[in-house]
């Protein structure tokens, strides 16, 4: 019988290890996606995902039921990913080098789409590449807000809670990030065509 999330959390709290697996199944994609977007490095993302779920397992007793479990997992992931980035920078690894390691290949998604016109197809691939590059070129604090808001669909309040800052900070970071993105994507923003 499938256990509800609340029940799984209770069981995990009581030390039932088997309750972790369904929670991992539910949140693994979200955690991995976020970790990869923040660290921009597959190896680090894998470590972040592992640390996140270990922390979930070990710190479940500190989770307060009044907060959403999803937000709590988001917060752990973001913190772990930031720690990895911080550690990496301390080791003086060039973020540019590591950024190149990531391979968000736009053509992968394109394969699933039926595009008749090869020119339109090529334009879309190019656009995806530009947009992805633009988002990844934002500073970390702005990128996180864009990822959490635009891509993960979280509210300002949820993001503020995850990043442990005020909603105003989230709003202004988002606004600034959008303005930066607008500059980076200027040719597409100013174009009349609807993509």
């Amino acid at each position, binding site marked *: 019988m499938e256990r509800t999330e609340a029940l799984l959390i209770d069981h995990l709290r009581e030390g039932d290890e088997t309750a972790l*697996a369904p929670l991992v199944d539910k949140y693994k994609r979200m955690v991995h996606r976020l970790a990869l977007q923040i660290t921009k490095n597959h190896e680090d993302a894998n470590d972040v995902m592992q640390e996140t779920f*270990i922390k979930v397992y070990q710190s479940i007793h500190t989770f307060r039921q009044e907060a959403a479990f999803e937000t709590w997992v988001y917060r752990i992931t973001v913190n772990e990913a930031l720690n990895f980035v911080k550690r990496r920078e301390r080791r003086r690894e060039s973020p540019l080098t590591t950024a190149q390691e990531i391979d968000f290949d736009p053509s992968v998604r394109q394969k699933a789409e039926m595009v008749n016109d090869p020119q339109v197809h090529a334009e879309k691939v190019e656009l995806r590449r530009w947009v992805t590059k633009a988002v990844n070129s934002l500073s970390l604090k702005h990128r996180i807000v864009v990822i959490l808001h635009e891509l993960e669909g979280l509210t300002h309040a949820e993001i503020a809670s995850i990043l442990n800052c005020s909603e105003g*900070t989230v709003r202004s970071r988002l*606004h600034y990030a959008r303005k930066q993105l607008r500059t980076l994507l200027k040719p597409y923003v100013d174009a009349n065509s609807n*993509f």
Partner: protein
Amino acid sequence: MKLKCNAIQRFISDYIDDTLSTKDTEKVESHLRSCQTCQHEVAALRKTRDLVVGFYVEPEVSDNYYRQFKVELHRCIENKGPTPLYERLKTSVGQFTWSLLTRVRQSFGRYSFIGRNLLPIGTLFLLIVTGFVATHMFKQNIWLHSNQVSKQVGKPVIAQELNADNNKPEVLQGIYNDYVTKRKVPGEVSNTNLAADADKVGYWKLAEPLTTETEGHIIVMHISNDRSVPTDDANSELIVYAQPDILNNKSPLHDDEYAAFPLELRVAQYLEQYPRQYRKSLQVVDELMNVPSEILTISESYEFSKL
């Protein structure tokens, strides 16, 4: 007209997200009806958002990767074991204390007034003691700090010190150096302006905004690290923020002028007026600036007193 556009800028992002209050939405829409520049701005930001949402390529990995991951995780958890004992102990002690109090109340509740009201009385007692101790410590801190502040509030010493050749506090000197090296871009702001205005009013009047992104904003200073964002720009630096019209009603600035304010001076003035807010650093600056707190990364209150 320009100021109005600047004021609307702050709302645009929320407007396209549809998270503004009805009143603010009406304000924005009323402005948009008469301003093509802002209409264009809204359309451009909306399109930018749609492009990101629609075309950002999210990383994807195979199911096999997750299967391997789960095996690794399982192994890792087995090696690391459950929550450390002291963590569990800490939680257990808290839970035990609470349940003990509840049990005591239940046991004696029907026999005595104290037993019946043990929880509220105990909580009240704890609150009074904590409040007393906190107030005592707080007063001492504030008293020490107020002495410092009063010296600063009388005349805008901080702004002057930044431009004087001697008596520069180490922290301020560092910030000023940062400003000169990092932010100084030809044609944007000159030291002459800073020096002339700081002597008179305690802020620096700028001939033009610093960058296009921060048009119409003031400078405040950022003197600590943001714990939530421990990266690139977390070090001390000048941050450009807020509009001149929200400084206060006495602002002598005209519509097309921009001001630079040292944050710590404003904080000092504020603390002089509202000492009880001392520890709420974020709130202090929020209220001071009346704007979203991009620069609100003064996470430790003691850092104010260093100034």
